[in-house]
């Protein structure tokens, strides 16, 4: 089906067919990464602004490479050292950027709804690259692309998402996307990191790692976000690693054909043991490679085809 949205803000709002069309487009984009000359002229003359209010290496670089391989001009605007540090509001910054006529603004912000606010205020396309603990749709899309590539399909698969579910926009976006595509999701973690009413999203809850990962097709380990941990949610990192870290021992409970995913950056030895992160079931680096393909697809669908407003 054709793409008609101005923005990509959440997985929650997408139809299954729209998710399918992004994944199909992304799969077609992958061939460009294997070329000697990694460039197609598709977005020539279009401008993509990366507006990042939170530190990010992977996502920002991924969007930057995606834009450049499509021949767009990519500009990075990061908050530390910019006018945001001088007290300019998000909307004022956005209006100033808009005055420079970009075609796409990719925004990451600590507040849930920041991308939606910009989408309403700006005439150009807005991509949510993470808004607080709300959503991170391109991460979910690259996860889905990776699973589809490795397993050949998505419908009917079961996934365990393990870790800090309450503060994870990655978990939320994945849960919405996976549920729409007919996948089963179990979330697992200590009770302090599982949000109340999470079952309303259609997921199962487990409070034991071995129980959660037994018999699933995919294990998604979340990063313990130490920078967002306010208060005593876990007794200690060591205790968390002991009960919730994916190690060769705990992995014994999982199936032989399981995929292990992690959105990065990895806290080695905390949520995942180095030998598991680098082990044969791990598809962590495939996720990163697919991230560029997914972001190319998103930029192409948002900025490539429609007559500019």
């Amino acid at each position, binding site marked *: 089906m054709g793409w008609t949205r101005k923005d990509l803000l959440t997985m929650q709002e997408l139809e299954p067919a729209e998710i399918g069309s992004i994944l*199909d487009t992304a*799969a077609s984009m992958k*061939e460009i990464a294997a*070329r000697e000359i990694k*460039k197609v002229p598709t977005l020539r003359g279009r401008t993509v602004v990366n507006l990042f209010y939170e530190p990010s290496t992977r996502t920002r670089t991924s969007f930057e490479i995606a834009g450049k391989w499509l021949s767009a001009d990519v500009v990075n605007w990061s908050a530390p050292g910019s006018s945001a540090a001088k007290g300019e509001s998000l909307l004022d910054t956005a209006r100033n950027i808009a005055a420079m006529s970009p075609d796409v603004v990719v925004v990451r912000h600590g507040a849930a709804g920041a991308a939606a606010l910009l989408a309403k205020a700006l005439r150009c396309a807005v991509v949510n690259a993470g808004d607080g603990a709300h959503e991170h749709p391109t991460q979910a899309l690259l996860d889905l692309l990776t699973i589809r590539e490795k397993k050949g399909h998505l419908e009917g698969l079961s996934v365990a998402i393990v870790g800090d579910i309450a503060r994870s926009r990655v978990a939320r976006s994945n849960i919405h996307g996976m549920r729409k595509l007919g996948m089963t999701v179990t979330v697992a973690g200590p009770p302090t990191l599982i949000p109340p009413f999470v079952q309303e999203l259609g997921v199962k809850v487990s409070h034991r790692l071995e129980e959660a990962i037994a018999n699933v097709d995919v294990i998604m380990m979340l990063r313990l976000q130490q920078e967002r941990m306010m208060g005593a949610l876990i007794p200690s990192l060591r205790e968390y690693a002991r009960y919730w870290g994916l190690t060769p021992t705990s992995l014994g409970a999982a199936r032989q054909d399981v995929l292990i995913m992690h959105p990065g950056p990895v806290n080695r030895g905390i949520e995942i043991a180095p030998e598991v992160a680098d082990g044969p079931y791990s598809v962590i680096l495939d996720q990163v490679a697919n991230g560029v393909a997914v972001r190319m697809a998103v930029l*192409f669908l948002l900025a*490539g085809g429609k007559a500019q407003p």
Partner: protein
Amino acid sequence: MTAREKAQVLDEAALDRALIRIAHEIVEKNGGTADLAFVGLRTRGVTLAHRLAERVAAIEGVKPPVGALDITLYRDDLGLKAEQPVVRGTEIPFDLTGKTVILVDDVLFTGRTIRAALDAIMDLGRPKAIRLAILVDRGHRELPIRPDYVGKNLPTARRETVAVRLKEHDGEDRVIIEEPED
């Protein structure tokens, strides 16, 4: 807007004869199959490229490699279209450098698709030569592009469309002219 069939241009036998003749011409001009490769344009050009490669194999006993090219990312009208076209992906599993590439498409019209295809191929390698094989040339060129191998030259009005229907996609082999119903 619906379209009505105005006339049949090629039936199954005529379409096959055209492909056989083009295959012979390609082999003759190329002096065999050395360095020969087919690249079809998605979607029906790919099917025709496979059929031509098989015809060449029947004549020479060697089947040249066949690739599929999607030119969506090279189009010059992306900003003009209301809805995003689907990217189906390029699959060329061989090196184009040094090859004589036979670019294959079903209908040649304005020439803009071929312009995009030439750019796309140049990004992928440096062929020795690129030739153009077309099943139906319907005229109305907007660029200085002409085919090297033609199945059928067909004068058309701009408002008409030429539909190439192939068994693999449409369940039948034939070419028809359609005109809008008004």
